């Protein structure tokens, strides 16, 4: 084999360039992770940090209908928009593998097995819930799955101000399925931002509410053969795990508007009723208390909702203690 023409100095120079670049780049990226405000602003970072900081034995687990703001004394609320059953399973293991659970309310809504989960990325992977990697005693945030997943997107966005890099493309809290619904969804966002706490669903015109509700139903419709799906398997596995760990489990069907319920029943290929039957049978067979929002002594007319399936913050504050009471008495 031919020998490579090179002097020692040219080799040393290249080696220095190689090692020096590694050192400088690694330090700069780590500093960026620690100082960039983007990592403070992202909901997913707050969510994962909240999970890591959770010490409460009592929890309410679900998706955006649960959220992160505690609404019942003594409970941690751990819900993330579009959370998937596999994430729920990872979450209960993270929370209760080494800790005794207390009272756990789990959302029992059809979107756990909804169409919109197909192809979505998971936020709560086992890796994302791990503590940071330590290099020579320093916790390297840039080498944690959560930070590394967003680091380059944020960096590019900062360098070029192309903020659209940052906008999530797949885990939207409000999936829309038509150009019209997209337009109405933007209008809804504007009105909600402008209206603040006083905003409610009736401030959108009735026909627009219907379009948005249909769009949401399309995404949340349980997939075909959901009974045999991995989504439902993970959901069941999470609940069984909680039971095995000695938790008092309660399933709660979160509120939706009357339009949502009615259009869901009329929807071709709609499987909302099928899911409702399944969850009730499952709860019965497992001897788990199941609470439907209709059972609560509260009104659920459209003025109580922010959108098709999320109640206003004020109504949520009133509702959750009643859910606790309906689930566990007292």
């Amino acid at each position: 084999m031919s020998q490579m023409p090179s002097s020692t100095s040219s080799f040393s120079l290249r080696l220095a360039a190689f090692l020096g670049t590694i050192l400088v780049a690694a330090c700069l990226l780590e500093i960026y992770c620690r100082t960039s405000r983007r990592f403070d602003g992202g909901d997913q970072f707050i969510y994962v940090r909240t999970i890591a900081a959770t010490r409460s034995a009592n929890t309410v687990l679900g998706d955006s209908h649960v959220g992160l703001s505690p609404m019942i004394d003594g409970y941690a609320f751990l819900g993330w928009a579009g959370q998937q059953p596999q994430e729920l399973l990872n979450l209960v293991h993270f929370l209760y593998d080494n800790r005794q659970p207390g009272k756990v309310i789990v959302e029992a809504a059809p979107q756990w097995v909804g169409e919109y989960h197909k192809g979505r990325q998971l936020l709560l992977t086992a890796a994302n819930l791990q503590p940071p990697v330590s290099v020579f005693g320093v916790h390297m945030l840039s080498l944690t799955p959560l930070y590394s997943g967003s680091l380059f997107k944020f960096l590019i966005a900062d360098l070029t101000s192309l903020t659209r890099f940052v906008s999530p493309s797949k885990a939207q809290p409000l999936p829309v399925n038509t150009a019209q619904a997209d337009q109405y969804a933007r209008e809804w966002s504007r009105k909600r931002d402008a209206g603040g706490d006083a905003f409610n669903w009736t401030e959108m015109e009735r026909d627009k509410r219907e379009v948005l509700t249909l769009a949401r139903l399309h995404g949340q419709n349980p997939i075909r053969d959901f009974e045999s799906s991995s989504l439902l398997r993970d959901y069941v596995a999470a609940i069984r795990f909680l039971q095995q760990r000695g938790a008092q489990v309660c399933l709660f069907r979160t509120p939706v508007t009357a339009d949502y319920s009615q259009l869901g029943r009329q929807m071709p290929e709609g499987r909302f009723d099928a899911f409702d039957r399944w969850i009730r049978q499952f709860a019965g067979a497992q001897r788990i208390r199941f609470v439907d929002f209709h059972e609560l002594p509260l009104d659920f007319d459209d003025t109580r909702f922010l959108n098709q399936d999320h109640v206003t913050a004020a109504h949520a504050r009133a509702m959750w203690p009643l859910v606790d009471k309906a689930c566990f008495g007292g």
Partner: protein
Amino acid sequence: MLFSSYTFLLFLPLAIAALAVATWFGQRALFVTFIALSLVFYGWFRVDYTLILIVSAAVNFYLAARLERTASQSVFWLGVIFNVGLLAVFKYADFLVWNFDVIFRQQIALPHIALPLALSFITFEQISFLSDVRAKKAQKGDFLRYLVFVTFFPKLIAGPIIRFREMAPQLAQAGVRQKEQILTGLCIFCFGLFKKVMIADNLALVVDPTVIRLQEGLVRPLDAFTALLAYSGQIFFDFSAYSEMALGIAWMLGIQLPVNFNSPYKATSIIEFWRRWHITLSSFLRDYIYFPLGGSRLGAIRTVANLLIVMLIGGLWHGAAWTFVAWGFVHGVALVANHQIRQLHIVQRAGNHWAFRLGAWALSMTIVLAAWALFRSPDFATSGRWLLSIVSKADNILETTGPSDRWLVAISTLWALLLPNIPRIFRIEPDRDAIDWTAPPGIPLPPLWVSAAAALALVASLIGMARNEPNAFIYFQF
């Protein structure tokens, strides 16, 4: 062990250190260390399959010994049957049984035998070895040397498909001998790692949701096209990354491997595409199947038939499914058409005009892209929907790709089309036939900026690797 895993990044320096020590103790110690490390690397996936590797190598070496003495046709074909038979059992058993069931309306259960990694690659390598020994182009040497060739871990799992006569002469000088080789090899490896972790694995996240949806129905035209471009980028960056990582690691250990990719998407014809894509496979198909079948020497009809046979075999080699056969057939037909068209007078006259070349490039890439839909889809229905979605008006459905996905696809496509490739950056001869493998030219130290860029690629890749479990390379399944 995956090249793009932290485990391998720990294994590699240990392997280099072990080989550096072994180099000191002489050739035999070096060969034993090579084999031991390769078996650890391979056994990391599944220990018992290392036995298949060793037995297969031993049988082929025995047959080569017989061939060296007699050049017997029957011994050679026995070797081919043994190698292809092994592949048939492990790779094609399900496919064969499934087709038998369908044709004869039987219900024989599928055996579901797990395919040992690398089997497709070493099958071709060992057939080329037997063929070269029979043709007196290679001498079998001793078994230890042959086992190093078969198990050599940088190229073991997914190629490049090398020939014994290319590697054997280099083994005399192999080992960890020059610090320049380690740095150069490391730089090549870093670029490959970046292509895999930061580009191919991210493109996979664009492709997969769309393909999942396509299994049930149409997707939006924009999503279908984005996903198709994304997959063409994913498979290119994934596989070329593996080949380049292999090239870099091998060079650290004193072995030069042939180049496997030479900017295939810059090709202006299907013929040229196959001279740039998976070069070591296409040259195997050319030298060990197409030429022995008669090549283009036996008239127009035989040439067409030979091209189609070669590409059908090439398609089936990739996977045990009719979609792969169809993919090979599409490329076979395109090659036949390409050979016919380039003989036309008007084509020969206009061939160098930029507008003609642009048109030829667009046509060639359209065929390549459309064929990728077959390659990626689990069935014909999905690939049909994929292509149909591109030209349909199905807008009233959930979107599967977003703006950031399209940015990634655009950047990766521009990279594949415009940036210089690894052979050019590192001044490596891309034409394996132009290299004298008894004294290969080697790979010179890269320029200073390349060293710095490789370091950046490494840092970015290490961070990228932290996101998830490492993804297997696409070609591992073949």
